[in-house]
């Protein structure tokens, strides 16, 4: 069975994001970019399934500018077998990404798509669910444990009240949560090896999908700042202050 892992190139999670002064977006120039952390977890899970012998090939796919090939190299340095880059400059809405991914799924015919639950830049948390709907596949969102059976998969999900386990027919879409695994670091030899792994390249129009935006971004602004607080000397003073503030 083949697993497809969509990986997005995003601002590194450690970067303090700044809004541009003209309100058109956030500062992306000279900012460290990385693979979306949830997608790294997705790659790791696919690799573990391969190491267990359940999966034969792990294919990473990224949609974005030329530099998204670096994100694919990261996935391949971890162990993904090959990469697919769908070139597109500029923002894409999750619906457009899902449509492109659908075309890739139809070509590659994976038994499973494992992807992140959320891209940490747009914080949308939509693409996996949309892809599942477009393919008419079941979905296991916010997964913290996977168990593959014969033609179906058990997915334990992180839900609001705790954990829920569901059983899905395959093929299926899985979206990862933080506790699914701890991704490995790529070793230097594997980073070298990844340079030789193939990346197939295509453009969004070549996928035959309409990626025109449905939404209009009217602007981006800074969140309101909290006023600076005060220090208290001990727990007693803290309780006094909270009583004064009327909390209890």
């Amino acid at each position, binding site marked *: 069975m083949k697993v497809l892992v969509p990986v997005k190139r995003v601002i590194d999670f450690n970067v303090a994001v700044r809004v541009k002064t003209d309100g058109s977006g956030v500062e992306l120039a000279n900012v460290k970019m990385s693979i979306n952390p949830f997608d790294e977890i997705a790659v790791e899970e696919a690799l573990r399934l391969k190491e267990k012998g359940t999966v034969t090939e792990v294919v990473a796919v990224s949609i974005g500018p030329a530099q998204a090939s670096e994100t694919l190299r990261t996935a391949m340095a971890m162990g993904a077998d090959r990469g697919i880059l769908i070139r597109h400059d500029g923002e894409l809405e999750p*619906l457009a990404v899902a449509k492109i991914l659908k075309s890739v799924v139809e070509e590659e015919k994976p038994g499973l798509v494992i992807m992140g639950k959320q891209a940490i830049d747009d914080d949308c948390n939509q693409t996996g669910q949309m892809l599942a709907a477009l393919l008419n596949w079941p979905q296991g969102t916010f997964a913290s444990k996977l168990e593959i059976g014969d033609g179906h998969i058990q997915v334990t999900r992180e839900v609001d009240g705790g954990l829920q386990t569901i059983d899905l027919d395959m093929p299926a879409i899985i979206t990862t949560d933080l506790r699914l695994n701890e991704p490995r670091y790529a070793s230097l030899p594997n980073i070298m090896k990844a340079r030789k792994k193939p990346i197939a390249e295509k453009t969004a129009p070549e996928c035959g999908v309409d990626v025109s935006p449905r939404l209009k*971004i009217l602007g981006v602004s800074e969140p309101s700042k909290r006023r600076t607080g005060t220090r208290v000397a001990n727990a007693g003073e803290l309780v006094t202050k909270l009583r004064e503030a009327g909390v209890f």
Partner: protein
Amino acid sequence: MPALVLAEHDKGRLSEATAKTVTAAAQISDTVHVLVAGQNIASVSAAAAEIQGVARVLAADDARYAHQLAEPLAELILSVASKYDAILAPATATGKSTLPRVAARLDVAQVSEIVAVEAPDTFLRPIYAGNAIQKIQIPSGVKVITVRTSAFKAAPLGGNAIIETVAPAADPGTSRFTSENLSVSLRPELTNARIIVSGGRGMGSKENFILLERIADKMGAGLGASRAAVDAGFVPNDYQVGQTGKIVAPELYIAVGISGAIQHLAGMKDSKIVVAINKDENAPIFGVADYGLVADLFEALPELERALG
């Protein structure tokens, strides 16, 4: 055309998230309907009918909705979607799993986690872990929206909506509920709590969380945690507050042994009063704290417990 709100409920109880989502929906459309899908939901439908501003409750009572699985739930919403100009759900695990399926099938975008309605077609939503606020317009088509409930007040009770039965929709039959392992707690649920006491890696162990529990119980508070505390197994996953956990905005949030990474701040910085207890005076959490106590938590927490009387 009216707006449809997907009700959030559990074990026969309507969640307050529903009334909060109704508030957002009422700012988008003059008429609001609520869809209750589940099994044995008479009490939930009756509670939804009491929310002011709700004109009609659609009740779909069927075993296939018992566990809120996204596949059948999305089909149900799609079966009534043509009558609505906006479809909203609270940004809960169910809402987030289901609405993007609906949007994709309607071939429209979804707008996630709005925190304000600027105009019936224009919304504010946080991006980059709340480091930026996006103003976004849906120029045409059905508006499919999830609502960050911490940003909206619950619509009051006192309404008297019509309750109407809707037929279940075809179940794709590709997903099945197996089991669940839900946290049992007598403390207030995080998204509803007036006070939250949250622990981080600094708590050191599962056992040490008892120090926080004692304080939570004195104050009638809910218990939260950072990702690091959840990853370390100190507390269950549903305690996680943050960008990719629960978003909360209580009257009082007390962060103990939490450094204040942006991903954590994203989930709590809209709290009315923030208290931080941390032994590192340079911890970023102090940057958002109204009251900061630089101290070892193992001394400060017992002291705090005594001071609370």
